[in-house]
C-alpha cells in the first residue's frame, strides 16, 4: 500500500487530502484494539473535515482504549481513477488500512445528494453494496446523521442505522459487538442482539407492504425483538456529555479552518419547514463556564487562530452575552479571532460584531426565507419586515453597506404576491440605506443587497411533510418572475437551479423502493451530485426511466394525513399529532410561539430534559 502511495499521490490534485497525519490525529497500538471503526464522510476531505460531528465522534470513540476510530473520505475523481487503475482499495487515513478490514464502516449522512458517494466508497472499498450480500468477512455498515430520520432509500445498503446522538448508545453497541465477536458469534447474532439497544434501527428486520396506489400499507417488524418504533436517542444533559478538548487540525486548507465550540443542541423557533429545528428537539444548552474552559483548551491544543460558535441559532442562547464577552476578553489580545454565526441584529450584536471584526466590515446576513409577512407567518419564521429594516438601518448607521438575504421559493401557499415580496423587501433595504446622509455614504463602498433563493424541499418530520414540492418547471417560472422583476442596480439576485432540489425532494421523502434507483444511477456513473461540475442530471433521468420510478409520486404529490409515511416507524419524540396541528395552523396563517414563550406539548418532553423543564 505505502509503496503505491508515492506513485499515486504525486499525480493527483491536493495529495494532502489522502494522507491524514493532522495535528491531534489519534494513533494506537493495534494489538490493544478490539474494535476498529472507520468513520466515513461521503464527500471530499475538505468538506468532511469541517464537520463538527466528525470531530466529536472521532474523539468520543477514541477515548476508549479498545476502540480505534479512523477516517475515510470520498476520493476526488482524479484519485479515484488512479486507485481503480492500480487496484488500490479505499483506505483509512490513520493507518492506511483497507476499509474492508474494519469491524465497522460508519457513514455520516448529512445530505441526500451524498448518497451516490456512499455507494461509490463501498465499491472502492470492495465491500458488497447490498447488505444482503455481505458475509462474515465484511464490516458492519452503519449510518448516522440527519438523513437517518428517514433512511429508507438507503435501507438496502446499510446493516444498521443509528437514530440520534452518537454519545448515547455507541458504547453499548461496541461492547455488544466485542462480546459477540470474542465468543465467535456471527454478524447475524450481533444484529439480532443489537435490536435491543435504544436508537438502533436494523432495516432488514422490518417488512414493508404496499397498497395498489403505491403508498405504503404497513411497516411491520419481522423479528420479535425489533421495536415497532425506534425512538431517537439524545443526551439529556449537555454539561455532562463528552466534548473533545482537542480537534483534528488539517494540514491543508478546509472549508472551515477553525475550532468549533458547540453551544447548544436543538432550536426553540419551530420554523415549519426546518427539519433540524424539529429533529434535534428539545433545546439543551451548555453552561457558559464550561464553554469558556473548553475554548481555552481547544485553542491551546490545536494552535488554531480562529474559534467559532456552533448551534442552530446562537442568538437564542440564554447566556449569549456572558459567553461572547468572555471570549472577547480571552482572545482579543492573543491574535485569536472569533467568528460569529448570523445573529439577530440589535445594538448588542452590532457592537459585538464591531469588536470581533476589527477592520473588515463584511456583509450582514438575514434569512427572511419568504417575501411577505403572510408567507413568513405560514412558515412560522418569526421575523418581521420591521425587524429586518430596523436591523439594516442600525447596521448601515454603524458602517455596514452589504446585506445578504436568503429566501426560498416554492413554499406552501406561495403566490405571485410572495415572489414580488422578495423584490420589494430587497428594494426597501436599498431605500433604507439612502436614508443615511450623503456625506456619510460617500466614505464607504456602495450599498449592495444580494438576495438569493433556494428551492424549497419538503422534509420528513416537519409540518410540511405532506406538502407537494414544486416541479422543476414551476421552480423555474418562480425564479424567472423574481429575476425579471428585480430592477434596482444595487440588488443582485442569485438563484439555484431546481434539478438538484427536485432530486433531493424525491430522496428526502423516499421509501425503500428508491434503493434500485440509487444503485442504477450509481452504475450509470453518478457521484459527487452536490458538486456543480460533477452533477449529471441526465443520469438521474435515465435511472428514473429504467427503474420505472416516478419522481412525481415522491416529490410532487400531496399526501393525506392518514397515509403511512416511510418514516412512520421512526420517532423523534415530536408527535405526528403536533405536526398535523402545525400544518393546520400554517394553512390558517397562524404563528406558533417558540418553546421558551409557550410550550406547545410537541412531545419532545418525553426525553426528560432541556428547555421542556426550564
Amino acid at each position: 500500500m505505502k509503496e503505491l502511495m508515492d506513485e499515486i499521490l504525486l499525480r493527483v490534485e491536493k495529495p494532502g487530502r489522502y494522507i491524514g497525519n493532522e495535528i491531534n490525529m489519534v494513533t494506537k497500538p493495534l494489538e490493544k484494539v478490539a474494535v476498529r471503526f472507520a468513520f466515513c464522510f461521503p464527500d471530499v476531505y475538505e468538506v468532511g473535515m469541517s464537520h463538527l460531528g466528525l470531530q466529536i465522534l472521532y474523539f468520543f470513540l477514541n477515548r476508549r482504549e479498545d476502540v480505534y476510530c479512523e477516517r475515510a473520505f470520498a476520493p476526488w475523481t482524479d484519485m479515484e481513477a488512479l486507485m481503480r487503475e492500480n487496484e488500490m482499495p479505499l483506505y483509512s487515513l490513520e493507518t492506511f488500512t483497507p476499509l474492508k478490514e474494519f469491524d465497522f464502516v460508519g457513514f455520516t449522512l448529512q445530505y441526500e445528494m451524498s448518497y451516490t458517494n456512499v455507494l461509490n466508497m463501498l465499491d472502492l472499498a470492495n465491500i458488497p453494496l447490498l447488505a444482503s450480500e455481505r458475509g462474515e468477512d465484511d464490516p458492519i455498515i452503519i449510518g448516522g446523521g440527519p438523513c437517518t430520520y428517514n433512511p429508507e432509500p438507503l435501507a438496502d445498503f446499510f446493516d444498521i442505522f443509528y437514530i440520534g446522538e452518537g454519545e448515547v448508545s455507541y458504547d453499548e453497541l461496541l461492547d455488544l459487538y466485542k462480546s459477540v465477536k470474542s465468543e465467535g458469534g456471527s454478524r447475524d447474532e450481533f444484529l439480532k442482539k443489537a435490536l435491543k439497544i435504544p436508537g438502533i434501527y436494523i432495516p432488514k428486520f422490518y417488512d414493508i407492504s404496499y397498497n395498489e396506489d403505491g403508498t405504503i400499507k404497513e411497516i411491520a417488524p419481522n423479528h420479535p425483538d425489533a421495536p415497532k418504533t425506534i425512538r431517537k436517542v439524545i443526551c439529556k444533559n449537555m454539561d455532562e456529555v463528552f466534548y473533545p478538548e482537542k480537534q483534528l487540525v488539517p494540514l491543508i486548507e478546509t472549508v472551515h479552518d477553525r475550532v468549533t465550540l458547540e453551544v447548544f443542541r436543538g432550536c426553540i423557533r419551530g420554523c415549519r419547514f426546518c427539519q433540524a429545528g424539529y429533529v434535534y428537539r428539545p433545546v439543551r444548552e451548555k453552561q457558559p463556564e464550561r464553554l469558556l474552559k473548553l475554548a481555552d483548551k481547544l485553542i491551546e491544543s490545536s494552535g488554531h487562530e480562529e474559534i467559532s460558535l456552533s448551534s442552530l441559532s446562537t442568538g437564542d442562547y440564554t447566556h449569549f452575552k456572558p459567553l461572547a464577552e468572555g471570549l472577547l476578553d480571552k482572545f482579543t489580545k492573543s491574535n485569536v479571532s472569533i467568528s460569529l454565526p448570523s445573529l439577530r441584529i440589535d445594538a448588542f450584536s452590532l457592537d459585538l460584531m464591531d469588536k470581533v471584526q476589527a477592520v473588515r466590515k463584511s456583509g450582514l446576513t438575514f434569512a427572511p426565507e419568504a417575501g411577505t409577512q403572510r408567507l413568513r407567518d405560514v412558515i412560522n419564521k418569526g421575523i418581521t419586515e420591521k425587524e429586518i429594516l430596523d436591523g439594516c438601518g442600525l447596521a448601515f448607521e454603524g458602517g455596514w453597506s452589504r446585506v445578504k438575504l436568503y429566501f426560498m421559493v416554492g413554499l406552501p401557499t406561495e403566490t405571485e404576491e410572495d415572489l414580488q415580496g422578495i423584490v420589494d423587501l430587497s428594494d426597501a433595504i436599498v431605500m433604507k440605506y439612502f436614508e443615511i446622509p450623503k456625506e456619510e455614504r460617500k466614505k464607504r463602498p456602495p450599498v449592495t443587497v444580494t438576495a438569493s433563493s433556494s428551492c424549497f424541499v419538503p422534509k420528513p418530520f416537519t409540518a410540511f411533510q405532506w406538502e407537494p414540492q414544486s416541479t422543476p418547471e414551476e421552480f423555474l417560472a418562480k425564479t424567472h418572475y423574481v429575476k425579471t422583476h428585480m430592477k434596482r442596480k444595487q440588488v443582485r439576485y442569485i438563484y439555484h437551479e431546481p434539478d438538484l432540489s427536485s432530486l433531493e425532494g424525491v430522496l428526502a421523502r423516499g421509501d425503500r423502493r428508491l434503493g434500485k434507483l440509487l444503485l442504477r444511477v450509481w452504475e450509470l456513473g453518478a457521484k459527487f451530485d452536490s458538486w456543480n461540475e460533477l452533477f449529471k442530471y441526465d443520469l438521474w433521468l435515465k435511472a428514473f426511466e429504467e427503474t420505472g420510478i416516478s419522481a412525481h409520486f415522491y416529490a410532487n404529490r400531496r399526501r393525506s394525513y392518514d397515509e403511512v409515511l416511510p418514516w412512520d416507524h421512526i420517532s423523534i419524540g415530536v408527535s405526528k399529532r403536533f405536526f398535523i396541528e402545525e400544518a393546520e395552523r400554517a394553512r390558517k396563517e397562524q404563528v406558533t410561539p417558540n418553546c421558551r414563550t409557550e410550550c406547545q406539548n410537541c412531545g419532545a418532553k418525553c426525553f426528560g430534559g432541556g428547555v421542556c423543564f426550564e
Partner: protein
Amino acid sequence: MNRYRVTFSKTDRMIYIGHLDLLKYFQRVINRADLPIEYSKGFNPHQLMKFAIPLPLGMRGEAECLDIRLTEDMSEEAVFSAFEDSLSEGIGLKSVRKLSDGEDNCASAVHYADYIAKPKDMVTGLEDVIEKTLAANSIEIERTVKKKTKVTEIRPLIHSLNEENGVIYLTLATGSQGNLKAEDMLKYLYQKAEKEFVPYRVQITRTRLYSDIGVPL
C-alpha cells in the same frame, strides 16, 4: 534580537504538503508550543517567520531551515524542546541555533543546496552525460516562468553533478541570487540520456542548504 534558526526534515507523509500549508502548519505548531513569537505590526498581524526556500511538494528535505523571531530571549535548548513536543510524524527537528546580531536571515543567506535523486527506473549513460555537462561552457534550457517559455543559461548554476550506483548527486545554486530547480536539471540530464523524465518515478531529496560552498546555513 531573539532570532533562531530551526533546522528540520520533511519526510514520509509530510512530503505531500505544499509550502503554504507547511507555513500554516508551523504557525500552529508555534502556537501549540506556546513560544513567544513576535508578530508583525499592521492590520493583519502575522508571526515573524521566514523559510530559507520553499521545498517543492513531493520532494523530501533533510535539513530545511526556518528563522523565527521571539519576543524574549530563550536558550536554544528550550526552543528545541518546545518544538520537539509539538511536531508531527514526518517533520523532524534537527537543530535550533540562535542567530548572531546582524546575521542574514536564511532566505537571504541561502546560495546552494545538495540534492540526491534516486530513479526508480534504470537510466543508462548518465555518467557520460554528466561529464559532458560539466565540461560544457554554456548550457541553455527552456524554462517556463509564468506561462512564458524562457531560454536560460544554467551552466554557472551547476556546482557539481555526480552519479554513483544509479543515484544522482547534485549541488545547485539555490536562492534569490540564482536558482536552478533540481527537477529542471534532471530533466536536462534525462533528455541528453534519451530517457523520459517522469517526476513521480524519481525520488528527490534536498539534503543540505548552504550559504556558501562548504558552509551550511
